């Protein structure tokens, strides 16, 4: 349970970090390390070099903006889960961020682990990749070649595989704000609170008066990538519609059958909670 040897660099600027990453094919980026260090210790990963970005300036932010298309929450690469979770502004602008973060591991892990790191680690059993996908957010990545924005729909390539190029570092995530008249909900089933979920479901519902105009559900731990299903046309039986697009997997934690069962149980429950949330928010927005 000790990592294999690697070279180590702790750059002071992003430019320095990007140059080093571009120059070393076997290099990996270290931020919070709450997923990477266990992989190193178990020797499931053996990078030739670690580039520790913890000393980089200006990446620890959690900011909210209220203008135009950019309305939402921006999270820097060094913002710890605990810091994002504690932000009342972020919870106000996009409530699903806090709802989901409270299920991310234990507080001790959240004190060190970063939200952006969790996104690009692309674990289908993790909460935040699915949330980013459901909210149609994005991740900004930088490299010596420049900066680009990857929409969440294009971020997850496979199990623990993102579409970042080898020389790119994720510098910021963007979670769009919750529109007026829209609602969200999150629930997951784990053997113990803080453990990886057997199945987790989030819902995003848009309403116009009493009518649901759009309903989408996100699933974690069901398939080997985070999956989002649009159930707007299947509100009478959303679980069947979801299962038609999901491929529940067997593993040591649960059988595929049991996962399908949990999808049937959680889907209507979470969808109803998000619909209620949307209606309560619409009620609040109406001036009395």
């Amino acid at each position, binding site marked *: 349970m000790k990592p294999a*040897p690697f070279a*180590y660099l702790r750059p002071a600027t992003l430019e320095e970090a990007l140059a080093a990453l571009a120059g070393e094919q076997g290099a990996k980026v270290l931020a919070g*390390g709450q997923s990477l*260090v266990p992989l190193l*210790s178990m020797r499931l990963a053996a990078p030739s070099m*670690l580039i520790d970005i913890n*000393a980089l300036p200006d990446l620890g932010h959690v900011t909210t903006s209220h203008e135009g298309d950019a309305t939402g929450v921006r999270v820097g690469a060094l913002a710890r889960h605990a810091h994002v979770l504690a932000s009342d502004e972020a919870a106000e602008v996009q409530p699903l961020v806090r709802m989901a973060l409270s299920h991310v591991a234990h507080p001790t*892990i959240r004190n060190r682990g970063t939200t952006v790191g969790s996104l690009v680690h692309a674990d289908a059993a993790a909460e935040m990749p699915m949330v980013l996908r459901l909210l149609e957010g994005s991740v900004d990545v930088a490299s010596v070649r420049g900066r680009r924005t990857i929409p969440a729909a294009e971020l997850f390539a496979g199990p623990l595989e993102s579409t970042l190029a080898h020389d790119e570092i994720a510098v910021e995530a963007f979670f769009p704000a919750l529109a007026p008249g829209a609602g969200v909900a999150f629930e997951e089933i784990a053997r113990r609170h803080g453990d990886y979920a057997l199945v987790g479901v989030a819902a995003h519902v848009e309403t116009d008066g009493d009518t649901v105009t759009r309903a989408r559900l996100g699933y974690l731990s069901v398939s080997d990538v985070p999956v989002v299903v649009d159930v707007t046309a299947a509100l009478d039986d959303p679980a069947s519609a979801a299962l038609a697009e999901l491929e529940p997997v067997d593993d040591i934690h649960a059988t595929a059958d049991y996962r399908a069962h949990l999808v049937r149980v959680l889907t209507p429950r979470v969808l109803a909670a998000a619909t209620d949330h949307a209606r309560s928010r619409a009620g609040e927005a109406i001036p009395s």
Partner: protein
Amino acid sequence: MTTEQLHDVRLHVNGSVHEVQVPARRLLSDALRHDCGLTGTHVGCEHGVCGACTILVDGAPVRSCLMLAVSAVDSEITTVEGLTEDDGTPQGRLSPVQQAFSDCHGLQCGFCTPGFLTTITAGLRDNPDPSEEEAREMIAGNLCRCTGYQNIVKSVLRAAEIQGEIQGEIQGEIERERG
């Protein structure tokens, strides 16, 4: 065979500075135990599940097995050895959390205890008066194979009481001095 490169690392632990030379792959838990000689931090699962190696990094509980020593240079670290309060005696005075574990039989074999003590010390700072439910939530990330947790939950509540009493005494003294 090439020799592995060593890094000069300055660790700030319990108010003291430790200058150590470690390879980049040295886990912080191992650096504390082997390089600093602070064996109070225990190493259980070594992949972030059991919580035995929990220390405080800039006041917040963190798994020391999930940090590299080289990455801890800018941090103020508190291990279980740093919880004891200085009262002029060589062994120091037990902190409220340590005293509560002693009072409530919150440990049996003691292996997991350092991780509980550090976690609860930080937990009570954030929430000085937890309910039983909140006490359970506070320790949910730490495993204990002896106690069945009942006495650890009692210890959390008792530690909150002791802290409250100390706070009350300090408050009383301040008021007497003013009066």
